């Protein structure tokens, strides 16, 4: 009985203090899913400026980028303020030759590969510090990759709320249903971060995610 009240009280206090403090919203996912494009869309919409550089070559984001005090509003006038954390794409392999194939010089490609490995380590370390996470997946790709399952499994184990964004729905090869069927236990929303498709619906979902 004493334990029950102690746990209840702890939970109550935790919730009370959590609400007001800094909410960290992380963007996670595999490389080239569109995390930075989505981060830029959010920042342009609500702050009037971009936060990250984007590229068609994987691992463009190799450091954690944070935009503090992003304030969004919904139709009902509710406001939500959070720190937006754009993370490097998580992968199990980094091959500098992949960058060379994209036209990069060997030295630069090796440097990029080294920075990318460090970025992945940082992204995993930062998982613990997130309050809520948006997983950004490329909806034209197979969602059943072990990296996706590992990221989501780790968030679940840490009780961190998750919203899955199936990005690039503007592309012909996009398959939103496949992403939904891969993760039936999570809310999935299809967007095009590049063109802003469904972005209002995405913001509404953020209010449900970050309570």
């Amino acid at each position, binding site marked *: 009985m004493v334990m029950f009240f102690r746990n209840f009280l702890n939970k109550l206090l935790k919730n009370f203090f959590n609400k007001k403090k800094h909410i960290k919203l992380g963007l996670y996912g595999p490389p080239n899913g569109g995390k930075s494009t989505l981060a830029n869309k959010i920042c342009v919409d609500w702050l009037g400026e971009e936060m990250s550089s984007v590229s068609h070559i994987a691992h463009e984001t190799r450091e954690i980028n944070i935009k503090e005090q992003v304030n969004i509003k919904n139709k009902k006038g509710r406001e939500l303020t959070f720190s937006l954390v754009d993370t490097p794409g998580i992968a*199990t392999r980094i091959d500098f030759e992949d960058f060379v194939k994209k036209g990069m010089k060997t030295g630069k490609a090796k440097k990029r590969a080294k920075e990318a490995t460090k970025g992945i380590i940082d992204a995993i370390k930062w998982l613990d510090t997130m309050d809520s996470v948006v997983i950004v997946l490329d909806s034209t790709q197979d969602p059943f990759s072990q990296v996706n399952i590992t990221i989501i499994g*780790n968030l679940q*184990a840490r009780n961190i709320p998750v919203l899955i964004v199936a990005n690039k729905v503007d592309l012909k090869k996009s398959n939103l249903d496949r992403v939904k069927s891969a993760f039936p236990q999570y809310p999935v929303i299809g967007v095009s971060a590049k063109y802003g498709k469904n972005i209002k619906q995405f913001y509404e979902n953020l209010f449900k995610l970050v309570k």
Partner: protein
Amino acid sequence: MVTFQFIPYQEIEYLSSAKRVNKLLNVVKNNKIVIMEGRLKKQEEADLIEITMEEITPKFRGIEISVVNPDKGKFGGMKKVKAGFVGMLLGDRQGMTIIGPASIVKKIEQNPNKIELFTRENKRKRNGKK
């Protein structure tokens, strides 16, 4: 030639998380494909990615990993209860984990009834060099 090394769960059962991950990674770094009985814990999977990244060099370019796990979600009613009970008894011993070096394994695809492991072509052989 591709070499597979089977690791029974009992071989890693009593190892610490760090030792488990290192054991698997050492096999993979010797250009072998690990077929492990059971699966790692979620945190260990993340650790495996993290440690793999620390070890990346121009020669070792990472890993490909796939976990085959009985999908509890597709069962209903009594079968679900049974699957849950079996899961409780076996824990992480259920299923199978495949880990291969990225220099050999291009990708591992899981279909409901089969696992497809795509290997990389050996450039030297293809070009007729020794």
